[in-house]
């Protein structure tokens, strides 16, 4: 399958520089360029469309405050996606705490269709296998899930994943291998 044209694509550095000078138009360009990919990544990681929109909003508010921290040492896309992944992992951890302390299962952790979902019909057609994959994916530990999603959904190379997560290529390889092993086991359990 062809690589997603927008995921790891670098934006013109002059737009990043203009954003660092506080130009709102440049920020808008960043949002339009990376927004969809960030939201898709968040949606895959959190399994919740509404929460993904919320995270996108938070990420760009945070980006406005912290964009001057970017030093052009790594690709801007990697820097931005790393922030997005960290925000997602924070939310997953807080879900875990809620579940642990209050016994509340977030509505979205159950694979199914949210009431707020604007396209329920499309998701209703989801095959049993897809449901099983999504459900199993949500049960794989976060660090493996991120690697699996970046590789399988966003079609990133090992080097790109390593740049986003700020780990070595060897670590990516081992996380992917372990993640796949666990995922397969969980899917087989789901499908009986």
């Amino acid at each position, binding site marked *: 399958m062809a690589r997603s044209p927008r995921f790891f694509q670098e934006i013109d550095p002059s737009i990043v520089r203009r954003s660092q000078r*506080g130009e709102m138009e440049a920020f808008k360009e960043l949002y*339009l360029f990376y927004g*969809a990919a960030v939201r898709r990544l968040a949606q895959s990681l959190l399994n919740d469309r509404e929460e993904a929109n919320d995270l*996108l909003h938070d990420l760009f508010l945070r980006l*406005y405050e912290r964009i*001057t921290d970017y030093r052009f040492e790594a690709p801007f896309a990697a820097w931005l996606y790393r922030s997005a992944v960290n925000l997602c992992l924070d939310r997953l951890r807080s879900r875990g705490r809620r579940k642990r302390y209050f016994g509340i299962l977030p509505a979205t952790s159950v694979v199914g269709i949210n009431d707020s979902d604007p396209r329920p019909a*499309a998701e209703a057609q*989801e095959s049993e296998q897809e449901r099983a*994959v999504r459900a199993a994916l949500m049960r794989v530990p976060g660090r493996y899930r991120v690697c699996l999603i970046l590789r399988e959904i966003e079609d990133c190379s090992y080097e790109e994943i390593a740049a986003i997560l700020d780990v070595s290529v060897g670590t990516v390889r081992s996380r992917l291998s372990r993640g796949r092993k666990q995922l397969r086991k969980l899917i087989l359990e789901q499908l009986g």
Partner: protein
Amino acid sequence: MKPNLSFHISHGKLSAYLDEELSAKKRSRVESHLGRCPQCRARLRALGELRQAFYSLRARLKSSEAPLPPWSGIEAEIRCSTGASPLFPRWLKVASGVSSAAVVAGALYYYFKPVPPVTELAVVSREPAELYQYVGDRLFAPEKLLVGDAVAIRPELEEAVFPREVYFHDRSWS
């Protein structure tokens, strides 16, 4: 020669092979093993099936993408938020925060610093009396005193000097 099938390809290597992330040399070794090992072929097939499941998930995710929420909402919030300006770099924010905290801490220390305890107290018995206090080799300006005035001689003042006949101590002067 009979192929050695006592070892199988590791899961990590098989996974990297599937991702086309192996060097040409390793790739050809894996392919040569796969050619003669049905077990490893089955494991690779299982990994391939997993990938197929992801393909349909990916296609669905991409095809059902809703439009992005409008930028205007984020822009309005940025404009409302105070101090959130990239023109004011983070290090400058941190530096100004640290210096403000230092000023506040200094002011608090100045107002609430502990007063050293009075160790000696002299009471003036005759006029005129002038109090000279030395700190190190500095003589402080004399202070006019009246009869009955109590003069605190604090420990940080090394020596209090005034004519012996005009004062008495609450403790013996030595």
